């Protein structure tokens, strides 16, 4: 298994490229999910505030 | 249609004469940028000749983006731009008049002052001639493409920096072939004809398409 990670001595280069790809392709959906949830929460809070106003 | 084109052109030139300092700010900016490079790099003749084409063109690019905001900003602020949109003449003709006036006030002076930069960088007389001719063809393209950016960022705070962010990538072909032409001229044995043909092709394309894009951008921004 370890020679797999060594990647013929170029492990650092291969895994930092793959790593960045993995990192960004996980980060983007997570950030969007968080944004989505906070937007919905704002809308609910706005709805409650309007409901209480009437 | 032609007389309103002339009227607008004359009006802009008249306005510029009444506020003469505006013309010189761009000119001095160009000269200063060209002059500080040797201080940063080196004074040797060989080095200066090597970097001259790139430096002069980058300075022309920066000077042009610096002055772009001025094309429509004043008219937008005092409401004359709206009246220009409401004229029977096609808007692209009036936009071309304004861009031409802007080029006469910022692009052309660069061409006239280029020999000064040429001497600073020990360029030969023929190279300076090529430099002026290439700048003469290139700077109108910068003004025309830049006018699109100016129209898009009309009335935005921090619009000046934003314009250069938008248009500098679009200037790259002019930069590549503009400085390439001067390098070729310095080598002497290389024919300059392909460079001139390419730059003139860009000029014609810009003449045909940019006024339409600028007019559309103005209608969007003035809304």
């Amino acid at each position, binding site marked *: 298994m370890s020679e*797999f990670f060594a*990647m*013929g*001595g*170029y492990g650092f*280069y*291969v895994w*930092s*490229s*793959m790593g*960045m*790809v993995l990192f*960004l*392709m996980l980060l*983007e*959906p997570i950030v*969007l*999910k968080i*944004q*989505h*949830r906070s*937007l*919905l*929460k*704002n*809308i*609910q809070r*706005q*709805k409650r505030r309007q409901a209480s106003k009437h | 249609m032609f007389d309103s084109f002339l009227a607008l052109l004359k009006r802009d030139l008249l306005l510029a004469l009444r506020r003469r300092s505006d013309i010189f700010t761009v000119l001095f900016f160009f000269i200063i940028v060209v002059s500080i490079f040797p201080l940063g790099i080196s004074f040797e003749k060989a080095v200066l000749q090597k970097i001259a084409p790139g430096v002069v063109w980058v300075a022309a690019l920066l000077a042009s983006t610096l002055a772009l905001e001025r094309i429509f900003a004043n008219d937008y602020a005092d409401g004359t731009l709206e009246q220009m949109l409401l004229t029977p003449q096609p808007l692209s003709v009036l936009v071309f008049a304004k861009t031409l006036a802007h080029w006469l006030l910022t692009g052309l002076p660069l061409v006239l002052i280029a020999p000064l930069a040429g001497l600073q960088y020990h360029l030969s007389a023929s190279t300076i001639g090529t430099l002026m001719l290439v700048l003469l063809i290139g700077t109108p393209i910068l003004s025309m*493409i830049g006018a*699109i*950016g100016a129209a*898009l*960022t009309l009335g*935005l705070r*921090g*619009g000046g920096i*934003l314009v250069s*962010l*938008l248009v*500098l*990538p*679009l200037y*790259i*072909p002019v930069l*590549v*072939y503009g400085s*390439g032409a001067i390098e*070729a001229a310095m080598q002497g044995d*290389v*024919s300059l004809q*392909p460079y001139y043909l*390419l730059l003139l092709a*860009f000029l014609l394309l810009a003449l045909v398409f940019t006024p339409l*894009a600028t007019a*559309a*951008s103005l209608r*969007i*921004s003035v*809304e």
Partner: protein
Amino acid sequence: MAINWFKYSSPSSFYPLAGKMIPVFMTLAIVLIMGGLYWGFFETPDVLSDQKQYYRIIYVHVASAWMAMWLYVVMVAWAVLGLIFNTRMSYMMASATAITGAIMTALSLWTGAFWGQTSWGTWWDWDPRMTSQLILLFLYIGYIALQSAIEDNRRSDRASAVLAMVGLAIVPVIYYSINCPDPNECASLHQESSLKRVESNILIAMLVVTAGFWMYCFAVILMRVRNIILLRESHTQWVERLEVKK
């Protein structure tokens, strides 16, 4: 049956549809990328002509580079649709695409730098393809900067649509000027693309990974467009009826 495209052009009907499509695209993306990488790492020879093990970077490098270019064209397509039909949905799709396109360009530059270090020994040499990716990144940044500088959605949509179209019109000229800076002895414009001389297994892996990237981009863009819809339509009734769970 004539698909009524305009039925989905209204945000309220597109929002739930996008919600259902995101998990589908995301799982497809994961399956394709994992499958492609597995194939690329284990079913291929250790050495590709002179390049040793590190050639495996090209799977993600080529995939992200293609996505970067394709997403710009997709973005301009949405922008043009928006200008023609004046449908808000198209503009939202365009601005949702921009950020993913910028990320893909950054990825292709990052992986390209590592690829360059292994095969040419420098992190960055002004190779025409890498330079065009860099300029593509500047175009994306210009688009995003203009979008965020204008508060009024109407104007920012249409202004950035015009900018994207002007950008697309000038991109081929930029590409030409970088590939052939000296027109006297202009290098053959179409350097033989790396596809032809590549061994079939590697080619399969690369295409599968690219397909995976396509699915990933769809999923992420749809997620972002749902956020934009919520942001812009927060005052409408149908948004208020949404429960928090979905």
